């Protein structure tokens, strides 16, 4: 049986030849991402922002038509609603985010509630509104604070570990690659004003995990080659390392890609954001391991002697005694 071969043996692609233009573009993209996040802001979902909650009963039905309701309410343009069973099987709670203009304005909120009620009543004659109310977000105010501290602490600890296992330059490189990935993901959400829900937090965490893994694999090969080829120029050595791990990089990202694509294409609407964010992050994370994490080592000046164990005084005396240089 002949096996599938995705990448030919012994490739010699000059990945790092254009490292400078790639870097400039990436840094511009990072800056643009943050500019977008700060100016346009993220489009928070009802999990974060709170909004309007309607409770209703479908008097003649055994089960509330939840998937239908989700589509109908979404078609009104107030973002992805959260529709869940609430109490009996024919009772639901529908949560939608209020547009910024309607926040804190009871009349505007009432108008939106009426609009939703009209829309649903058109298709379901047994719809009975049990009440509506303003609700706060599910995520407490301190969520962002703890989330950011957790990320900072995690990044600091990881840098220290990489510093110990590799060199400090590698720690900086890995952090920069992570920063790049998170920034671009956030930028994408700000640019297209995709709904930023709790799921997206999950996606970002997954992207961080994947990107770290990918970076470490490339770094491991660089470390190995630094020990092996003492005289090789650093750019050439980085290219060699990336080429040697290319088959693995392609195979791993392709595998994860085929795992994620069905979720994007056939998965439920409500998981589309999560699945597409992780898929996007897969590319960004792979790119950053090669183009962000590796070239930074050249500029930070990794010494090819870094990984040679230091000679002890006794060894040195031995060597001199043997008459070696």
């Amino acid at each position, binding site marked *: 049986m002949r096996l599938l071969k995705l990448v030919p043996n012994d490739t010699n692609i000059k990945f790092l030849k254009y490292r400078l233009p790639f870097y400039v573009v990436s840094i511009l993209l990072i800056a643009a991402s943050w500019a977008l996040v700060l100016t346009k802001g993220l489009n928070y979902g009802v999990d974060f922002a709170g909004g309007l909650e309607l409770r209703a009963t479908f008097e003649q039905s055994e089960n509330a038509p939840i998937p239908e309701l989700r589509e109908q309410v979404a078609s009104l343009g107030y973002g992805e609603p959260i529709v869940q069973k609430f109490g009996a099987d024919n009772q639901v709670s529908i949560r939608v985010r209020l547009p910024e203009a309607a926040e804190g304005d009871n009349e505007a909120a009432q108008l939106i509630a009426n609009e939703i009620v009209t829309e649903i009543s058109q298709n379901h004659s047994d719809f009975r509104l049990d009440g509506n109310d303003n609700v706060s977000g599910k*995520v407490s105010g301190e969520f962002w604070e703890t*989330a950011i501290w957790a990320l900072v602490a995690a990044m600091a600890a990881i840098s220290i570990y990489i510093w110990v296992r590799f060199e400090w330059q590698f720690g900086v490189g890995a952090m920069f690659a992570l920063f790049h990935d998170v920034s671009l993901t956030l930028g994408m959400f700000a640019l297209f004003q995709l709904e930023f829900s*709790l799921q997206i937090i999950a996606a970002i965490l997954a992207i961080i995990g994947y990107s770290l893994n990918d970076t470490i694999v490339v770094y491991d090969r660089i470390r190995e080659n630094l020990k092996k080829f003492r005289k090789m120029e650093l750019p050439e050595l980085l290219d060699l390392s990336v080429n040697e791990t290319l088959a693995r990089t392609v195979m791993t990202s392709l595998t994860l890609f085929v795992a994620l694509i069905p979720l994007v294409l056939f998965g439920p609407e409500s998981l589309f954001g999560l699945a597409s964010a992780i898929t996007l992050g897969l590319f960004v994370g792979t790119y950053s391991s090669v183009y962000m994490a590796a070239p930074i080592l050249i500029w930070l000046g990794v010494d090819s002697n870094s990984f040679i164990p230091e000679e002890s005084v006794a060894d040195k005396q031995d060597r001199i005694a043997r008459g070696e240089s």
Partner: protein
Amino acid sequence: MLEFPTWRKVWLWSLTLVAVAAALPSIFSAANIRWPDALPDPVVNLGLDLAGGSHILLEADPQQVKTQRLQNMEDAVQAAFRSAEPRIRAGDVSTRGERLSFMVESTADVDRAREEILPLVNGTGLVREWDLRVDDETRFVLTQTDAGTEAAVSNAMDAATDVVRKRIDALGTREPTIIRQGENRIVVQVPGLDDPEQLKELLGQTAKLEFKLVDPEFQNAVPNDSALSISKVGTQVVPYAEGSGQEGTSMVVRRLGGIQGDSLIDAQAGKKFDDNSDVVNITFDAQGGARFAKLSSENVNRRFAIILDGEVISAPSFNEPIYGGQAQISGNFTVDSANALAISLQSGALPVDLEIIEERSVGPDLGADSIRKGIIAIMIGFFAVIALMVATYGRFGVYATYALVINVLMLLGIMAIANTTLTLPGLAGFVITIGAAVDANVLINERIAEERRRGRRVVAAVENGYKEASRAIYDANVTNFIAGVLLFLFGSGPIRGFAVVLILGLFTSVFTAVTLSRMWVAGWLRRSRPSELNL
């Protein structure tokens, strides 16, 4: 690296089997198949977003906060006047109409009284919490301002929310949603519907514990109707609690000189030594312990009442002085009610009473329909991964597939044993672990192929492939592990849910993708001694 003595194989397989077996109850329950009752049944709890749960709405009475605040102010003023030098005498104290008013007995003391009161009234915040007025030269009237009441209610609700969280989620793995709603409400949602009664029991108790001496004149319980007529100075009548076995009667206790439950440092449910009945063992802090020792040594053979939320749960006697700050609360408990009381005492008393005003079951945030669609999509993806792995790596791909399936089952099993809750962010952690497991196999297989191309013989190539690839796998996993631990320690809610799965999953993915697959490859090499590897 390829030597696997029999004891090691047995050990690896039994580890695998135990973890996989632990996943079975969860799989059975997901597929709606009955799990035999005789077997242990650890199940992975699904979070609110995936499975829904119980919804309880709690409401506090702001009036109670106001009354409490007035009472505290009266105590503070009295204490300040008592400790003033010379003592300030005040009388005609009234706390009616949401105001505290009293008369200073001598006009000469008015200025000093004002000086004592001002710091109490001004508080520390920016808002004005009390209005102070002096009528007819000697009558002080303290009125709570709206802003002050609002701040007090808000503080009480914040504290109550904390207590509720501690009671429900002491270990931090249950993933409840606890949010304040409006001015005086708390929404509690807890995944799963197993036991809403226990949940209510945990939230219904204010858990204000007091120990008070029974008045020597009334050593025995008095029927409620005749107890009402007792009005001995310095005593109060406290009714027995429901379920105490003494309903309808009351104890007459001394109002002062007791001990409050807020000096507890621990409370655990346990069994009484002699009759095996359920009790709650409590431990006082140093100060509380000393006071309890003093109270018990001065009152040997006298009865005292254990009062919970204004009701007597039992009234034993001090058989001997109790030193060491440890005591036992007995009183007609069941295992569950003793447990609930222990948790309530540990988490501290609620600053306000909370009333359950709404109780319902809620469906999953995502909707059952979405979850079904999601599972189908995940299955398609899973089979696509398997096809790709087998097409690329042949026999090694088959081993990788086994490793992947066992990885998923083991992770489920360990999560079930650890009683964790799986949420959507947790599923993202699942995806990462599966990705890490796939990547480990890819790394190993690519490395073996590379070693072959460099001209190593088959066994040496496999051996070197595992050895060289392991270093990268090790570093990548330790890095992710560090990230997971810190996210768990510092993060909250969804971030924790992700971190737990990530941490557990790293272990299972390394175990299956590296250790187990190496055992299988080694077995195959030994059996068929191949001269070429198809990679």
